[in-house]
């Protein structure tokens, strides 16, 4: 077998090639990921609640969404903004051609997070003929949800609630990553869903949770956010 002379690369050659390769990687990154170099954030940092309305093509749709949400006392005067900036008027939409996406995001500034009830939001929207596929909530480092279920007749119901993280297909499919644990009280029908400690800017999707509760067959009639003083970042007393 002809081996030829065994040659090794010099340090300068290795460094040169390594730097050139890093340049290639940077070049690909800069060329194809321009949005990452502009530093624009995808989400407004201060909004506590964001709804993905599956159909929001014009101002007419928006009016109905707002009308639906304003039936909830805690959202009556809340500022609501379309994330995309503006929508077509009904007249413009009348003559517009097909679109790739007919939905949109609505960002809502809620004054008191403890008043948010996601079941009420869902019901109000459906009553008006609209629906939100995602209900994102964030801005707090730690919080929990309290759901009220009507049916919890036995220990197995309680068990099913508490085992929701492992039973729900949503979790198995990679969803509900924020969920830490669930505790259920049989006497009151209260289900407490503990969220994990959140990074600033991180958001969770309450619609995913409602879906998971439907999946285990125990749909809540209310799903409230509970943000206590201790859980907004103050040191936890229990160790």
């Amino acid at each position, binding site marked *: *077998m002809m*081996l*030829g002379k*065994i*040659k*090794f*690369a010099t340090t300068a*050659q*290795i*460094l*040169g*090639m*390594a*730097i*050139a*390769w*890093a*340049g*290639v*990687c*940077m070049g*690909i*990154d800069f*060329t*194809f*990921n321009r*949005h*990452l170099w502009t530093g624009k954030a995808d989400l407004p940092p201060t909004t506590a609640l964001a709804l993905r309305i599956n159909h929001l093509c014009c101002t007419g749709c928006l009016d109905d969404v707002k009308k639906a949400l304003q039936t909830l006392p805690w959202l009556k005067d809340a500022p609501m903004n379309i994330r995309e900036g503006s929508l077509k008027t009904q007249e413009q939409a009348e003559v517009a051609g097909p679109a790739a996406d007919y939905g949109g995001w609505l960002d809502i500034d809620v004054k008191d997070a403890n008043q948010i009830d996601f079941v009420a939001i869902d019901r109000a929207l459906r009553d008006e003929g609209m629906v939100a596929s995602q209900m994102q909530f964030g801005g707090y*480092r*730690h919080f929990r949800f309290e759901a009220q279920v009507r049916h919890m007749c036995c220990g197995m119901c309680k068990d099913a609630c508490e085992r929701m993280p492992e039973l729900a297909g949503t979790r198995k499919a990679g969803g509900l*990553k*924020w969920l*830490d644990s669930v505790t259920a009280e049989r006497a009151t029908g209260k289900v407490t869903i503990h969220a*994990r*400690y*959140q*990074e*600033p800017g991180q958001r969770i999707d309450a619609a995913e949770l409602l879906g998971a509760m439907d999946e285990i067959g125990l749909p809540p009639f209310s799903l409230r956010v509970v943000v206590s003083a201790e859980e907004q*970042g103050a*040191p*936890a007393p*229990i*160790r």
Partner: protein
Amino acid sequence: MATSKPESPRFPAVSRRRLATAGLALLLLLPTLASAHERFVKHDMKKPLQDWFFLQQAGKLFGMDPSMIQVGLAVSVVLAAFLVIWFLREELDEFIRNKVLSRLGGWPQRALHNLACFIMDKPVRLASFYTFGEWSVIMFLRSPALVLMFAATNDALIMPSYPLEPSSAVYFKFLQVALAVLILTQTMLPLCGAMVIGTWFYLFRWGPFVAIDAIPVLTAGILYAMSPWISHKLAITRLNVDQTRWIRFVFGLGFFILGWSKIYNHDLTIGVADNYPSMMSDPLVGFFALGTDPAMRREAWVVSFALAEVMSGFMVMMGVFTRLWATIMCVMFTKLMLVDFGWDEIPHIYPIGCALAVITSNYLRSEFNPLERIERVMRRGSPVKRFALMGAFAVGIALLAVMPMLYFLTFTDRSMLK
């Protein structure tokens, strides 16, 4: 066939200075933007830590929390003990040979002798050990290719915890596969080494923590970079002296720096532990945290856990009981992969390969050669004086390795981690 670059027993002084400068520069980069993320290993904290524990506190000795100092000193003591044993290991070896092995015969004598050689990083002259060493080098040489393929199929760069941006994913995925093919076919390994090192340079674009997390990847880069250009024609089955030394040093350095970054980014450390509570019951870590403030249990655990990694990284980096510590790391990685984190940590297969290649090398050297030379010279004189001097060296080195950096970290700004 071993690839045989002329074997030089020492790093040139210039290289060492460069390495030290690079290491220092890397540490200075710590307070910049951190965007390392663990996509698969869960790291959400259940309860927040007391941040002030890790920072300067008025009215305290050196401004450090007493529990933090206590853990630092406990780690220094253990490190010093290992160093003393290392410096005086010839004495121990002599004792084993003259007082223990001489009374035995046959296979028990040979087995004990080989075990002593293994622990003291001396050449192990066993055919099975040699064969296993050859296999380990082949595994270390090729396993990064599997990791690259795995990353490509998971839309990630090198490790699954570095997800690729969808807009550029396809290019990086193809490039990773191309690199993996070059590695698997052993084609132009120096180019592969440069590509691995270059990719590591690129990781700094995502923040220093990502690059720090990936330092162990450099060990594979070094192996390739130090291989011959006609690598495809050779069976590379042994590491030479230089390869062993560089790979061992960088492998240890990676853990040394990762340990410090665990204290700096304490929320991430406790977050992973919160999700995998079995990590909290490590006996060595528990020992370091003994006697610390019970109200600061979680904070003391973070410091103990991180310093255990600093200590093991330091010993591997400096070549002190390399085989022993690399074996512990090997067991730890295997446990993490098979027991704690499961499939998500399958890329740990390449550091296991690296550790095995180092463990089975018969070219292990320590970076404390000058001190060992002093010890050898002093053997003719008083043993008390020799023991005292070696003890003083050991304590000094241990304290220098742990305490200044621990103190320095209490001044660092962690606001960019939030």
